[in-house]
């Protein structure tokens, strides 16, 4: 497995004025953001605000038209292979290879992320146990319910123990018990030093799991600040102010 040294003094993730157009209109404009190890940041915004585009760029699935992304102090756009070991991504709707069963799915993801042999088997068994996928291990991914798919996608994102976890609406289709388990998992990852960036429509999700919140509106960052569990009302006011009236000027680089 290729290993590139980490610069522990640098923020884990630095977005520097990244922009991206999609379908002829700006989806993300001049977005700057930093994320430290162990931090959990929630990305809020109405539909079309640019959350998924931002997360796709951070995950390495999409290149920005302009700007820079630094991961562990390295230029991520110049070294996209950094994503292999350091980033775990759960895309929206958790796409799967329908013909493979859950176990094969995890093995394929592990191999794509550079895991082999015993390390792969151990990582697979650990994540199957952690996400309670044991009863599903022989089931084809194509016949899983959306909630089960979401858990499989999460398992694939966590399999190689990434330094940065990128979750695009991870609570989609999960029942309340699974949502509680997801929150516990995110806290557990953050405590272990993993940085987490998640997008959601649910303000309660942000106050329950995140240290920080960034609010996007029409592709621009309008708010970036700390959030606490008892901040729900204040967050609601800020969010609706931005979403309904575009209140507050776009935030400066964090």
């Amino acid at each position: 497995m290729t290993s590139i040294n980490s610069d522990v003094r640098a923020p884990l993730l630095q977005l520097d004025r990244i922009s991206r157009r999609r379908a002829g209109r700006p989806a993300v404009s001049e977005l700057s953001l930093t994320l430290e190890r162990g931090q959990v940041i929630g990305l809020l915004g109405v539909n079309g605000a640019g959350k998924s585009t931002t997360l796709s760029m951070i995950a390495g699935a999409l290149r920005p038209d302009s700007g820079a992304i630094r991961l562990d102090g390295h230029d991520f756009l110049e070294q996209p292979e950094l994503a292999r070991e350091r980033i775990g991504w759960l895309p929206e709707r958790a796409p799967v290879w329908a013909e493979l069963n859950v176990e094969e799915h995890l093995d394929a993801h592990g191999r794509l992320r550079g895991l082999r042999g015993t390390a792969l088997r151990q990582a697979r068994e650990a994540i199957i146990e952690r996400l309670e996928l044991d009863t599903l291990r022989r089931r084809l991914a194509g016949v899983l319910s959306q909630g089960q798919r979401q858990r499989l996608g999460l398992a694939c994102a966590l399999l190689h123990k990434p330094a940065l976890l990128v979750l695009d609406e991870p609570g989609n289709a999960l029942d309340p018990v699974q949502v509680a388990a997801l929150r516990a998992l995110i806290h557990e990852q953050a405590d272990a030093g993993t940085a987490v960036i998640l997008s959601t429509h649910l303000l309660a999700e942000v106050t329950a799991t995140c240290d920080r919140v960034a609010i996007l509106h029409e592709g621009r960052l309008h708010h970036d600040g700390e959030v606490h569990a008892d901040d729900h009302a204040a967050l609601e006011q800020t969010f609706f102010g931005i979403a309904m009236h575009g209140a507050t000027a776009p935030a400066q680089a964090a």
Partner: protein
Amino acid sequence: MTALAVARLESRRLRVRPLGWVLAALTLAWLAWNFTLLLGSFLSTQVQRAALPDGPGFTDLVAVPLLAQLAQLAFVVVPLLGMSMLAGERRNGTLPLLFAAGLSPSRIVLGKYLALVGWLALWLLLTLAMPLALAGSTDLDFGKLAAATLGLALMLATLAAITLACSSFAPHPAIAAAVALVIGLALWSVNLGAQMAGLNGGVINWIAMSSHLQPMLRGLVSSADVLWFVLAAALALALAIRRLAGEKERG
């Protein structure tokens, strides 16, 4: 190594999809039936031909015609097998998963190509096993058979690359298969008109795939023919890689 991980993933997907097995079963059954017909015809005229000095033998009358039939089937089988390799990933939303694993477009395309070529090599070997099963009791011309096998392998590899290129451009797997079929047939027969007009040289004949496979089926291997297949496959793969790289850029 990551190209091999993609190849392994794709091979597994080919193995568990019924389409690959159905195609293999149908085509091998068809080829086996034709093998028995060719063999029967060979045996019924064996005595007359024995009187001819340097007359055609088992290789010319059974083994090579069987491989030629495989070549005809390949125009349909290869596009059907490879149509969803990139177009299907795009439709299912799984292509970004490969990009996000830090894989370059060239490794994604190469991995998928290796998987498809591996499957086709197995198909070719199973077909080849039919005449080889009689190697102990007939006088096989191994040199001629090796030349024909090389020609077939190159043709399958080229059709696989063309199919991948079509799959990288097409929005739907069925469109990829249809376009790959049309391109394959066009490449095969582009010189038919010229040949009917009595022209046996020139650029149009050089472009045609048939001009490069037929000498090999007769046992003649030239580096120019091998180079044609290598160039055609490399061009198709380069197009697929370029398309994929553009997709990551444009989204």
